[in-house]
């Protein structure tokens, strides 16, 4: 994804586009997965909580 495409996708995601948000989340899935492990096991609830936290706070990110 080029810088210009990334900017457009991120802007759309912040404005509430679900597709753009899905693209952004998919891009950062490795990071989210890395933080979703507790005691060496993937915690699905934690991953869900992280998703919700990102959805809630994405609008606070200033471009």
């Amino acid at each position, binding site marked *: 994804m080029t810088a210009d495409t990334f900017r457009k996708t991120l802007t759309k995601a912040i404005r509430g586009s679900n597709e753009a948000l899905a693209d952004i989340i998919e891009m950062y899935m490795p990071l989210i997965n890395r933080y979703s492990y507790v005691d060496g096991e993937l915690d699905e609830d934690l991953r869900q909580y992280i998703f919700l936290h*990102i959805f809630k706070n994405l609008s606070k990110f200033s471009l």
Partner: protein
Amino acid sequence: MRLLRGNRVEKQDRTSTIFESRHTIKVCLGFFVPRALMVCFGGKEHTMYGKSTERDELRGKFTKWMEVTVYRARLNYLKAQRRRIDTIPLEDAPIEKLCSQEGEEQWIQKMRRADSLDFEEEALAAAFSQLPAMKKEVLTMLFLLDMTPQEIAGELSCTVQYVYKQRSLALKKLREALKGGDAL
């Protein structure tokens, strides 16, 4: 002796200034040379394979933001998990535990302990019963079991500050429920 000491000090000063100046040159080279190269090559970073990649500041900023957000979310979740009181539905509770003699005795003791709260007013008892489980537990430990905030923090695996906060919030709620601060 004084002269010798003086010479030593001078030598030390000289060596330290030489090291400092070398360090300054290194820092200057490290700072200015890459930027000068960047300007020469039109603001693009050149990789070792000869491919040029544009510097995406927004993506870098967003990645940093994501890392911090995800890290905080994880911390919040784990804290909440530690504070959560384990409960199971009554249907799933083992019958042996429900019907055993020990369980009954424990229940009677618990009820006696609850009675020993000795509320002056029924309104206070009602207000206390409406408090969340954590606040009830903190108040009980503080005033009934005479535990210190440090001991409670250790018991509940939380910070002392959290215990004080729970205490003040619980007391505030009780005052509000009693419509004034006279009762407490």
